[in-house]
């Protein structure tokens, strides 16, 4: 019996905007797919992108990174650091053979509950279409693990 593939998503979100936004999704009872596991951080600036690779290494099929909109960072500039590092990091994950479509980088404010739901749904559907992520071997080659 072949079970339909259900992707595993890991979300790295900041405590002030996106985590709060996701809370609002709950308070507003907006439904979304249950595939995502949230890692709460103080700020997207805290994201060490090795964590993203680790997430894939540990069997995530997709990753969501989301924090405050530009200028809205609770810590003034954390999200800018995150964005800058993401720009560099994109190329790396591309290099290690992770389809960029598996990673979503987004801004969601504390007031955008509905946006969180649609972000999770879109990413889940996209990754489900891409199928399970299996190229961990390539990661190993890239010296992770």
């Amino acid at each position, binding site marked *: 019996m072949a079970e339909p593939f259900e992707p595993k998503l890991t979300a790295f979100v900041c405590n002030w905007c996106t985590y709060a936004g996701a809370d609002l999704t709950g308070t507003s009872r907006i439904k979304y797919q249950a595939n995502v596991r949230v890692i709460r951080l103080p700020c997207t600036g805290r994201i060490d992108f090795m964590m993203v690779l680790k997430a894939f290494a540990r069997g995530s099929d997709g990753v969501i990174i989301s924090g*405050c909109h530009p200028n809205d960072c609770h*810590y003034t500039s954390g999200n800018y650091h995150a964005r800058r590092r993401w720009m560099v990091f994109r190329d790396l994950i591309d290099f290690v053979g992770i389809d960029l479509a598996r990673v979503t980088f987004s801004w969601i*404010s504390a007031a955008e509950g509905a946006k969180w739901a649609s972000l999770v749904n879109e990413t889940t559907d996209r990754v489900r279409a891409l199928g399970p992520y299996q190229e961990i071997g390539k990661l190993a080659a890239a010296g992770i693990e």
Partner: protein
Amino acid sequence: MSRVGVFVCHCGENIAGTVDVAAVAQAALAMPGVVAALDYKYMCSDPGQTMLKKLIADERLDGVVVAACSPRMHEPTFRRTTLESGLNPFLCEMANLREHCSWVHDKGPATTAKAIDLVRLQVEKVKRNRALAPIRVPITKKALVLGGGIAGIQAALDIANAGNPVLLVERSPSIGGHMSQLSETFPTLDCSQCILTPRMVEVARHPQITLLTYAELEKLEGFIGNFRATIRRKARKIDESLCNGCGVCQQKCPVKKIPDAFNEGLANRSAIYVPFAQAVPNKPVIDVASCTFFKTSKCKACEKLCPTQAIRFDQEDKIEVHEVGALVLATGYRTMPVANFPEYGYGQLTDVIDGMKFERLASASGPTGGAIKRPSDGKAPQHVVFIACAGSRDRAKGVPYCSKICCMYTAKHAMLYRHKVHGGKATVFYMDVRAAGKSYDEFVRRAIEVDGVSYIRGRVSRVYEEDGQLVVKGVDTLLGGEPVEIRADMVVLATAVEAQDDAEKLAQTLHVSYDPYHFFAEAHPKLRPVETNTAGIFLAGACQAPRDIPETVAQASGAAAKVCGLFSQPELTREPVVAVVDRQAPPLFSSCTGCLLCKDACPYQAISEEAIKNRAGEVIKTVAQVNPGLCQGCGTCVALCRTKAIDLQGFSNQQLFAELMCI
């Protein structure tokens, strides 16, 4: 081997309704390091917390995971309980089974599975938590209130009356805000200025209140209890200490044809002016843009005639820095410009006005002395049409939300018009009458039953001019959508309430969150309505959402109470979520290589160099050092650090990677 206890909350049906809580507790027991797990109806209830304490003691737990609602909701609660049971509060973590799981997914195995995962993540994290001591910081017991409308006035007075110094900052030349422009107030029809003016005077007189009008906040640094506010005091071009408000300058100023903002352009003012008679402070300002002297460097009439030589043409803006412990945002609202309504012919049609203009027409202190005269020819309009929901509940061209106050003020306007123009006809086009409030609906009924205002349910499609009259093309949806065409002398639009133009910019300066319409966001929609997500910054009035006067005043007092509560503590304890630099025994001393990338990345200048010296006092090594008083715990430095020598307490690499390992 750690001894973690897991406590699964049903939250009544909120969690248990969709998640198999028993199964979650079962699964938790099987997780390495978990020695006890239970589920209970309400963990936050008294019995629930007693259970928690008891288990911590009985099982000698060294870690606690409460699987319940969002940590943003109850983390403080459960950490307090943990503390009361003698365990370090920072050994307690929460798994968010409600907002992030039961409320957003349907009942079923997938949802329960997710719940179990969420618990596992926290278990793995908490096993690596360290006992931390909260950071103690002093509080500057002085409040900054931003905005001098009724909200700011109320908040300032309440805080000051509790014995705390207050800095009240207003950007216009006088306090009073929109309320000082209003004629009479619903539902009691008492005169707005009669009830407001005494409060304004009280503010000016209050020994604890420093009033800074014609001033704006430029920058805010620091954190709760320890803010540093940079304020620009715009040059009034007069010496306030000398001016006695005699008003000669206004009378003698040759430039008199400047549209008066206070009167919504229905009257003119001079270039040197006091915005209105009851202004506080009663000191003029020179409007540099229109003053003859600043254009041609001639005139100086005011300077020549000022009995106290208070005029200072060369006065410059002053920048002041103030230390404050808390902020109250009371920056108010604006109404949607009527130019946004081409279908209501604005721009061309001078007799299509908005509610604020009508307030000035109806106000005894207004340009017409309270007589309703239409702008175009000063005649008393014989038929006035009031259009509710102009821009409100209009997601296409306006704002999707309900502006809340329009139904009431429109009823008031129609009523006042009927009182003032005998035999005049008042017609109100409305979609729904929303009059939820103490004796509000009675008020609307009175307008209809006693004052004979005719209410038509339907939206107006167009207002245009024909043969010198305004034609209002409306509809009566209660007559099956029958078109209604009214020839009116004046049309009043109840334009939508919006956030101030610069609300977003201000929010960004203060790092408070705001909604898509730029209203400032409260920390919790129900339970923390006057707090923002940024500790130490509170909200009052229409800068948070459309509000009427009673609500605004109540909210302002609420914010004031929060500030007083904060100031009543001897000192603040802050969460020890701060960065620490690794230190170890010689010869290494620290894994920090002193590249100090972190120093530049830190938004709070909390990182500095530290020279490690030997006994001889020679510098052996330079490493980074964090000032826990300044560090806010964003963790940017940690992510940057190449040697992982700097780490964030509470969100350490160990903890986070542990979470990831069990994904």
